[in-house]
């Protein structure tokens, strides 16, 4: 007498219900153990090593790996080694999502460090939210996001612009020419910039977006000539930054009279365009390689020793470096059996570390980071000169451009 198909199904269903209702702790405990087993803590490292944004993401991979190697060399996290699982999402958002799924579900990583572009972050977000895992995002970005599954260690618009815009108005004048690449980041930054301009009596003479990867700026330069702004406020990204700066220089425009003020030009971009094209222009960011602090000297020396003396550090690679240390601190606070992504998230709230830029802190409310805004001017040797340093660290306000909305630990709240 065999078991009929129907009984088999019934039994299976009963077993399922039994397991689900009776022993939930068994299942949860199993996943608990998987996260920190055999003296190993697995983390994903998800930066593009090929494709268009590999140029910059390679350096983010390097900074993350450097921090992991340093932590492991110093004994790991309470005796456990961090094991980085490196994937190459090839600068393609769909591949980002696929690799994120592999790291979270297949490899059971307890956290993933990754992404440069907003497009790739938006693509992996559903994976981390469904699996209740944790993503560490090091890049400055446009704000307006309030996920409980992402730790944001880059600057949001208020941290780059609050000091920068009034300073530019005072020093050069009130006429701003806004130019950016045509996607979400520049538009959101410009939204905030326009609010600040209104507040401080500035004016927008033009707002313009060029296609991503655009490299012919003669029409833009013509318009700049005819509108005569005091400041060119640039959120152009990628190789367009290089073309814009080089053509500005070739056109014989003068940075002393009409400087470009950028939120995206770091040491990395300056190295790509050459110091002569970058010299005289301004950038606002929490970190520059020339910043003087013992932590930064150690970071720069270690980075060059590990990856080559010609390499530069910049404001995104610095965030990669310190966020890995914040991860370590958070995990250290937990008992080995408690190491899960949600517990790490809760442990990192309010956590502080002395980063190369200064002391930073994860804001418990919105999981963004308290940072130290700085304004610097590029020099022809490829480095910056820091002109203004914030006297206090600045609270991250990811919804600064949207007064009705606040990101809290209960999610986005609409104030009427």
């Amino acid at each position: 007498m065999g078991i009929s198909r129907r009984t088999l199904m019934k039994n299976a269903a009963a077993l399922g219900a039994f397991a689900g209702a009776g022993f939930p702790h068994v299942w949860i405990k199993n996943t608990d153990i998987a996260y920190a087993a055999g003296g190993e803590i697995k983390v994903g490292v998800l930066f593009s090593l090929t494709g268009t944004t590999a140029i910059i993401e390679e350096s983010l991979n390097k900074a993350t790996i450097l921090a992991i190697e340093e932590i492991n060399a110093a004994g790991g996290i309470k005796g456990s080694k961090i094991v980085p699982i490196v994937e190459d999402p090839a600068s393609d958002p769909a591949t980002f999502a696929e690799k994120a799924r592999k790291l979270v579900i297949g490899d059971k990583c307890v956290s993933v460090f990754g992404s440069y572009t907003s497009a790739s972050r938006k693509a992996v977000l559903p994976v981390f939210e469904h699996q209740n895992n944790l993503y560490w995002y090091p890049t400055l970005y446009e704000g307006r996001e309030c996920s409980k599954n992402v730790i944001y260690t880059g600057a949001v618009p208020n941290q780059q612009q609050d000091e920068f815009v009034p300073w530019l108005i005072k020093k050069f004048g009130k006429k701003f020419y806004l130019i950016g690449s045509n996607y979400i980041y520049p538009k959101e930054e410009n939204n905030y910039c326009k609010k600040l301009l209104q507040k401080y009596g500035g004016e927008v003479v033009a707002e313009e977006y060029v296609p991503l990867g655009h490299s012919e700026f003669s029409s833009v330069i013509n318009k700049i000539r005819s509108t005569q702004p005091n400041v060119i406020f640039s959120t152009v990204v990628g190789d367009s930054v290089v073309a814009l700066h080089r053509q500005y220089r070739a056109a014989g425009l003068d940075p002393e009279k009409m400087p470009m003020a950028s939120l995206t030009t770091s040491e990395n971009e300056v190295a790509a365009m050459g110091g002569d094209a970058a010299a005289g222009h301004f950038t606002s960011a929490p970190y520059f390689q020339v910043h003087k602090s013992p932590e930064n000297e150690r970071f720069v020396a270690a980075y060059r020793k590990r990856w080559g003396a010609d390499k530069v550090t910049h404001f995104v690679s610095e965030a990669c470096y310190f966020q890995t240390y914040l991860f370590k601190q958070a995990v250290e606070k937990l008992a080995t059996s408690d190491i899960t992504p949600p517990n790490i998230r809760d442990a990192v709230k309010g956590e502080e570390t002395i980063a190369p830029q200064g002391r930073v802190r994860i804001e418990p409310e919105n999981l963004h980071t308290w940072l130290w805004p700085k304004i610097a001017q590029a020099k022809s040797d490829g480095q910056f000169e820091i002109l203004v340093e914030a006297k206090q660290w600045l609270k991250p306000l990811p919804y600064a451009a949207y007064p009705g909305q606040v990101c809290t630990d209960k999610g986005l709240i609409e104030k009427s």
Partner: protein
Amino acid sequence: MDQFIEQIVTGLSIGSILLLVAMGLSIIYGSMGIINLAHGEFVMLGAYTAWLFQSHFGLGLLASLVPIFIVVAAIGWIIERFVLSLLNNRPLDTILATWGVGIMLQQGVRLMVGSELRYVQLPQSLSDSMDVFGLSVSSYRVFLFTVTIALFAVTWILMNHTTVGMKLRAIMQDRSVAASFGINAKRVYGLTFAYGAGLAGLAGALVSPLKSVSPDMGTGYVIDAFMVVVLGGVQSLAGTVASAFILGELSGAIAFLQNDTVAKALVLLAIVVLIRFRPEGLFTTRVRA
């Protein structure tokens, strides 16, 4: 009025870069019928050769133009000799082959010198701006315009007033008849492809001080070049010139009135519409089939 002239000058400048990039493609496509998808990679190789000469041998851009032409032409000749000449009369396979060669060149460069962006120094003597009709224009852009016109003149003479050019035109008309008159078609094809590749290399080197140099920079240029050649009419050098400047003026003007995003879309739309009604392009040279 000032603004109008300024716009014309800008358009000429954009057009000269388009023409510079499209000329090599026009020669290869027009005379050999090869749709060379590796064209953008020849442009990229030229830019990298310029960067190499500058960073490793300390040679300025102007001094290295001739060696760059020779290097990229030699690479083109090798590819024609060992890949494309084996695919005679197989146009589809040729497209695939040039595409593959392009990918290999791109990855080869990435493996050898890395994927970082590079730049080429503007020649010191041309780094200022100068007066043209009372407008201040970048000296380098004026220089680019002049060089482009000179290269076009050289190409024109080569095609129409030399023996090699005459042989090439004969082969274009009818390969087997030309061969029966003792013309070595293989050799002429090799040289033509090398010349086209060399021109593309020069284009890459010449635009490199204004744009960024990266392994995948060719992709954008090959699209621009095809737009110019298709609009101008295949097999018509004069058509290539006209269409380059028409596209330059058009995209410059729209970008000034609107912005570059709109310009890109409208220019592409205009080309599509035009090709719908004039599939052979603006200019055609009638060839007896």
